[in-house]
Structures are given as structure tokens and as C-alpha cells.
């Protein structure tokens, strides 16, 4: 794909990707590949993330102190780097989720005002 499209996709997903990673790790530490699969699976394949973009995001999160990395072995006895939430990351996840909900709600209200009014 062309560079421009690529860039657009990445820009859209950077902030949200961080959020998704944090959420995925809520269930417990995982390695990179597992995280990627989890996101795909849990979004029912709607979100097709370019898997490579995961790694810069992971390192960003490490730099901010929201996750930490550890060496470990995976299910089939292969070495892998496991990423897990830090307490700070947990707090950040709650914060970001809240922000996201507010945002989504606001957009929804604008897009479908009649429905909501009907509801209330």
C-alpha cells in the first residue's frame, strides 16, 4: 500500500492501540503475538492491526511506565518477552476507558439524537 494510506491508518490507531493493548493485558501478561491475536479476536476481526505497529506501541508504553517486560517461556516452550500491566498502567487504563466512553457517547448523541431522545 502507498505510504500515505499507511500513515493515515497508523495515525488513527496510535492512541487507541495503546488503549487496546492495556485492556488486553488486564487479563494478565502476554507476549506480542498473543496480544495481536487477542485484539483481532476480541474485535471479531473488525480491527486488523498491522502487527508490526504493535512493537513501537509496546515500547512507548514501557517508556511511560504503564507496562513492563519480562523474559519468559510461552506455551510451546519458546522464549518470549511477556508484557504486563503496572499499577500505574492499571490506573491509566481506567482513565483512558472513561475518556473513550465519554467520547463515544458524545459522538453517538450527535449521530443519532432522535433515537436517544426516544429512549429517554
Amino acid at each position, binding site marked *: 500500500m502507498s505510504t500515505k494510506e499507511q500513515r493515515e491508518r497508523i495515525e488513527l490507531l496510535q492512541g487507541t492501540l495503546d488503549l487496546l493493548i492495556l485492556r488486553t493485558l488486564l487479563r494478565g501478561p502476554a507476549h506480542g503475538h498473543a496480544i495481536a491475536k487477542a485484539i483481532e479476536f476480541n474485535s471479531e476481526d473488525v480491527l486488523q492491526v498491522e502487527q508490526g505497529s504493535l*512493537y513501537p506501541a509496546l515500547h512507548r508504553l514501557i517508556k511511560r511506565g504503564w507496562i513492563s517486560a519480562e523474559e519468559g517461556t510461552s506455551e510451546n516452550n519458546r522464549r518470549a518477552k511477556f508484557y504486563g500491566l503496572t499499577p500505574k498502567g492499571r490506573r491509566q487504563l481506567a482513565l483512558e476507558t472513561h475518556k473513550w466512553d465519554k467520547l463515544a457517547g458524545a459522538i453517538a448523541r450527535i449521530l443519532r439524537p432522535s433515537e436517544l431522545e426516544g429512549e429517554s
Partner: protein
Amino acid sequence: MRRDKRMMEELDADIREHIARETQDNIERGMSPEEARYAAMRKFGNVTRVKEETREVWSFLWLEQLWQDIRYGLRMLVKSPGFAVVAILTLALGIGANTAIFSLIDAVLLRSLPVEKPAQLVLLKWSARKPPIIHGYQSAGDCASDLRFGASNPSGCSFSEPIFRKVVQANVFSGAAAFANAGRLNLSGNGPATIINGQLVSGDFFRTMGLKAAIGRLIDANDDTPAAGAVTVLNFGYWQSAFGGSRDVIGRTIELNSVAFTIIGVTEQRFTGISPGSDYDVWLPLADGQRINTSGPFRWNDRQADVSYWWLTIIGRVKPGIPAPQAQAVISGLFRNEMLHGSVPLFHGGEPMGGPPRGGGPAGGGARQEMVFGGAPMRFGLGKSPGREQQGATGGPMPQSAGNKPIILSGPPGATPAGGPHPTERATEPKTLSSAEDNPEITLVPAQSGLSGSRTRYSDPLYVLMLAVGIILLIACANVAGLMLARSAARQKEMAVRLALGAGRARVVRQLLTESVMLSALGGSLGILLAYWGAHAILSFVSSNQPRPLGFAMDIDFRVLGFTIAISLITGILFGMAPAFRSARVDLTPTLKEGEGISAGWARGAGKWVSTSNALVVAQVALAMVVLVGAGLLVRTLQNLRNVDVGFDSHNILIFGIDPTLIGYKGAQVDSFYRDLQGRLAETPGVKSASYSMMPLLSNGLMVTSFHWPGTPQDQDSEADDLGVGPNFFETLHIPFLMGRSFNASDFEVAASNRGDQPSSAPTPVIVNQAFVEKYVGKENPLGKHFGETAADANGPANPGCEIIGVVRDAKYNSLRREIHAMMYTPQSMGGATFELRTAADPQAILPAIREVVAQVNTNLPLFNVATESEQIDRLLFQERLVARLASFFGLLALVLACVGLYGLLSYEVARRTREIGIRMALGGRAKDVLRLVLNQGIALAVVGAVAGTGVALGVMRYLSSMLYDVHANDPLTMIAVALLLILVAFAACFIPARRAMRVDPMVALRHE
């Protein structure tokens, strides 16, 4: 770095693991191993990019990248040495020229005062709505002052000594100092007598300035009392040159104007005077001013207590507890008090002066005197009191370091016969110096900006030169940009590969910009060397023109270095932009496939006329045109000035100044000395004739007199230029007589007695020029006409006025540019004089003989300002010569750069289109056609550039008008000549590539990639 490396290795492993897992998953989904891997890798994305982005998260990545870029850039430059050398040289010339001129601007205009913490120093400036009623004002051009007759809101920075004492008493400064020019000093006791310049300073001067002595000690408060011994401090440079820099100079006695002074110390090397451009040889305490002027007309006894004689410049250092506005309020209040409630001291009505006015004023007591120095005349009224103090300022425009001559106006500025009171009137009713509605006040201005000194003299040409070198830098940038464009075309493949490998475009652009900045940094470093050499050359040219050292020192200091770095950076970015962006926009696929990007050949090239490279060359030619036109105008100005008819024969004339009053000659002694000397000189072998005058012609010194012309209303004054001359003046200078006769011995006697306190009944004979006759006499016979008579009244005896006894042809007086005004020549009596000798051969050759003759009369009489009249005229024209020379140099530089740019472009085109040329020739085209094709492009570019340049020049040259003489800013002749020159040189530049195109062998060309 090591941690990063480890991290990258880990990341590498992680990524591999990730892809392996995905591959495994794909295999489980049913793909073949190869398909699985391929899908996994596609899903992952660009591995390199991922790695880079991850690295970016962590580092000062930009720093690493910068280092990478620099190394890469260096490698690429080394690979193409030809390009690198040309680019660096071009940039060095452009940046170097700018640095050179800037360092001059720094030395002259920006340098801080050579004292301790100059920001704390403030200068006292007075201002009022009308000029104060004072009888004497002296200024040495330290600050910009405006004391013109009748000008409203005059201001200045000279004050009376009582005011200074009050300022000190007010104690609002941590230190207050006053200083004034000591005038011409005859120094003896150290070899043959010489004339030097000195400055009188108050006791606290050196302490307030925070200066240290190089050896010995400096003047302090104890030395500045009448009881203290006469001491003096030497200038470091003067100490080196006149005393050999020997330490035993401390304690030695020398004589200044026949008064013994003890040398107590030498100032530090960097201090030559507080005002920019000033260079004094010695400093003396204020209290000793009286001693060295015993024979002068300065009335030193009165000066120290005289509130009405303003001659001191006052500087204070701000006290920590008292901010400047507060101090200003106090000082201004003090000043106002003095102005409104103090009283004017009396004239010594009727008493003769201690000596004659040095300037030798015109006859006629009712006359007013004006002194002019290279600017508007400053006038002052005299009244009829004999309290005249005038000083002829021989040579040197006002704020010039050469001589630092004082400008003395005497008489109450603003007093007119009809308007203000005569000084002696105040004998009966003391008036105050100013009135409330005139609002006299003092402002404290920062000394750094307030003391302008010689700065104003040089600022105009410096700014013009700065503009010229700025344009040259632009040309250099355009030149190198063109080179880089050509080079980037050759590097297209490299760029394409890098982009294909995943480098972001921003990264590529950044790397190319780094290369450009590196080039300009290298150019800048070389440029500093060129600048250093160039600025020194300019400064030594300038100082070789002044009779005294320049008082400005040139250094490469922080400001200059900072400037160089800044413009190197800007230059690099400027010329790197276009090529960098062009490279990054490369279309990948076609470039990777073909060998070189085949952009349009000449056939399709017509559509791409306005390509960047062409535009760059046109811009260069246009800019070069602007600089050349400017240079042309300045050169023509110089020519015109040189060809001005000065009205006398200026070849083979030797002039020198001599001042016997400095060693005690008084009154009639002075006149007889001059006459005697003149006689002896006239008989010296090699001298055809000799004479003297109050000041030399064409030396910027000027005197103007006003008088009453009969038939005009009583209170209306007429004016004319005025020059006192000795016997044989017109014959020596070859100014022809049109009517009447020259001065004879009795004329001088009459003039001398009229100047005294008992004027004779005979009018002073004067000789006038044609302009005078035209203006005042008209059609009548001028011979025998009387004017300037005043009747006897309470203020003094009757004055018989002047009588015209001859008319001479018009001649220039003080400068070449000033038109000839009505002028009268009077028989000189007393005062300082300049001798003019017409020699048979080279004037310099008989100089030793002349010195001999003078020494025979008195060994203690040094000659000063010795020069030939031609040299004097050259000095007058010095600024024009400097600017013309530099402008021409820069104009040629611009021309060369532009033509190199043109040549480069055409060479590149020819090389690039070799294949096309080969095809044309193989298909039957003639060599001549190819030649014409190349030439056409080159000439077309040059012509378009010349036209564009002419347009710009038409708009811009008018800013030069103040510097031009007798040539219009939009002079068509100059423009056409320059345009022709440009096109001719451009033609030559095109010729070589064109011939190369002609010689292309079709067979070779067709096989050319």
C-alpha cells in the same frame, strides 16, 4: 549506545519470534509453509520501519541520526571532490564577505565602550525649546548635538564647570566625570617638537571608568586641584611609538605648550578615548587646562566659575541604590534651577582679550561668526563686545578622530540685534540663562548609544556595503543550489533506492539538509579566514588615509563568530531546500527501472522553461546586475568628484599647519612671524611661491560670516563664506583676478588694527569672488563698495566695515560637493595658519628643506597636518574612494559568481543531453546548429537576468542618491554599460560549454548512458 544495541537485538529476536508464531498459526490454518511465512510477513509489515520506529521511541534518536547523516554526507562529499571544492569556495566567498563587513560594523558601530561595565554609564544631555543664553559653547563631537542658530529644540552634551561641580555634589552617581578636548598641544622634551592631541579629564574620570594603568598610575582626584603638580597620562599606543614603550618614562618631564608636565602613567592598551573613534595621545587634569592656555583667548580664569561657558561633557556611573530615572530627576531639577535662577556673568566690557582670536575673524565688530565642519553651519551671534572667542578649526570634519578638533562657537546663540539682548546689556540687567517656558532639562542617556563619536561618519557606507555583500551571499546560495540540483539529478537512483527501502521522505530531506549545512559550515570556516584578511585590508586602507590612527580596533569577537555561524546555518538551509525537496519527490518506479531519469530534452524543454535551475541562474544574473549598477554609479560619482573644477591649481602644492601661539607668541608677534616665515619660504630653492591662510582649502574646514549689506533692512543679515589669507595667496594658488588688486602691506595693518579694540576709521579691505558679486553687487562696479559698517553705540566703538578691493574667480572652499557660495577673503591677522607652498617639482621632496627653514626661525615649532594639496583632496574623497573600490570589487565578484553559475548550468545541460546531441548530429545536424542552440539558451538566460536586474536596480538605486554626485540614481548610461558588460561576460561563459557540445562525437554519444 550499548544498551540500545542490546535492546535492538532483543527486539530483533522478538520480531522473529512473532513472525514465527504467526507462520505457525497460518500453517495450522492450512497454508503451505511458504505461503504461511509470506502471509505472516505481510501481516507484520515493514520490519525495518518497525525497528526504526521502536528505536525512535527510546532515543535521542535525532542525535544519532544527525551523526549518521553527517558521516554519510562527508562520504558523499569526498566522493565528488570537484563539486565540494567549488561549492565550499563559493560559499566561503559569500560568507566571508559578509563576515568581513559585519566585523567592521561591529568594530565601528556595535563595540561597547572600552571601560568597565559600560552599561552602567550614562551621559548627560541637555535640551530646551530655545537655545540658552550663553556666551561660549565648545563641543568635540562626542555626541549628536543640535545647536544650530534659530533651530528649535536644541540639545547637546556640553555643560559649564559649575554645573559639573553641582552634579558631583548631588551624589546621585557612584562616580561622575567630566572631560573636554584640550586642543592642540605642542609637545617638546622628547626629541623634536610635535603637535599632539590631549584630553582634559576631571579627577574622578579614570576611577569612574574603571580603568587600570598599564604602568605607573592614572590621574586621580588629588591631581585635579590647582595646587597639585601638573601631571599627565600617556596613551598606550602613543607611549609605544613616541617613547619606545620604555618603563623609565614614569617621572619624566615633558613640556606641553611650554608648560612642564610630569608623566605619571600609561593607560591600558584597549583604551584610546571614551568616545568611539577617539584617539588621544595624553590626558591631563582639568585643573591644568588653565596653565596650557595662558596665551589663548579662552579666559581660563573665568571658565572654571563661568556658568555661561559650556565646554565639559559629563558622564556618570549609576549608583546601585539610585535608579537612573530618579537620578535624572535630581540632576534635571538642579540644572533647571541653575538655568532659571542663576545669572549670566558679565563680559569684561571694553577690555581687550588676552590674545587675538585664534581663528582670525573677519573685520567688522558687528559680524557674527559661524564655524562649520562637514555639516550644517552652527551660528552664533557676537554682539559688539570684544568678548570674542573664536577658534578656527583647521582641518577635519567635526566628529573625526583625526585631530579631535574642538568646535567653538562663541557669542550667544540665538541673540540677534533685533531679538535678544546684547551681552553688555546684561551688564546692567543680569538675565538668566533660560526661561521657564523654554523648559530646559537634562536627560540621562546610556553612554553606549549617546556617545556617538565618529560612528555616524562611517555608518552610511557600511550599510551600503552590508547590502552589497548580502546580495553576494544570495548569489552564492543560488549558485550552490544550482550545483546541488544538478548533483541531485545524478543521485536520483540513490534516492530512489533509499526511499524504496523504507526511509521516510522526511528522513531523506533531513539528511540532504544536513549535507547542505555541512557544506556551508565548511564554507563558513574558510570564510572567516578570508574575512579576517579582508577586514584588516580595509581597515589599513582607511587608516592610511587619516593623519591620525583610527581609534577603532578590529577583532573577531563573539558577535562576529555568532553572526558567521548564524548565516552559515541559514545559507545551508536556504540553498539546500529546493534540491532536498526535489530529491525526495522522486517517482520510484521509473527511476529504478531506467538508468537516469530522462527528463525533457530540448524539444520538450521549451515547455519547462521555468525550471528551477534556469530560474536560479536568472536570479544570479539579476542580482549581479544590481550590484554592478550600484558599483558603476559609485565609481562615476568618484570620477565626477575628481573632475570637479576646484577653481585653483591644486597640483604641486605643499600645505602644512603651524601654530606659534601654542608656545607663547602673542599679538603682533604672530603676524610678523608669519610674514617672516613666508618670506623665507618663498626664497627656498624649489619653492615657486608661498602664502598662508587661516585654513587650507578643501579640508572640510569652513567659516561663514554675517554682516549688514547697505540697502537691506536694518535687522536683516547677509552672509558669506570667509577666509583669512596672507600675502600672495591668490598668486600662489593660481586663482586669477578679474578685477582690482591683491592685498598689500597696508591692507594687513588696517585689518589688524580693526580687529583690535580701537578700530581705525578705514574699512578693512576684502577681496570677493564672482558669486559674491552676483549675489550682492549685481551690475554695479564692485570695487570700492562698502558694507558691514556699524555705528558706535553703548556696546562699543564704531566699526568701519569692509571695502571691496578686488574680485577673483570662483573657487571651492571646504569640500568638493558643496557649491560655491558668496565668499570674501580678508587679510589674515593672528590665529593659527596653514601655509601653502607652490613647488617646482614634487612637493614631498622639498619637505626636509622646509622643516629646516622653520627650524631656523624657531626650533620649537612643529609642523602638523603636512600634506600635498592632492593628498588633501584625496583625504576629502576618502569615503567615496573606499566605497567605490569595495563596491567595484563586490560587483566583479558578483559577476564572476553569476557567470560561474551560468557556465555550470550549461555544462551540466550539455553533459546530460549528450545523447540527444549525438542523435541530432547523427541525423545530419551541423555543429554550428548545436553551438547556436547552447548559446541561445545561455544568452537568453543572461538577457532575462539583465532585464530583471535592471528592473530591480531602478527601484533600489534611489537609496544611494545621498552618496551620489552629479549622476542620477537611475542613470541610463550606467545601466546600459553594465548590461552590455554582463552580457559580454556571460557570452564568454557560455562559449566553453557550447564548444564542448559542438565537439560531441555522435558515435560516442549514442552509446552514452
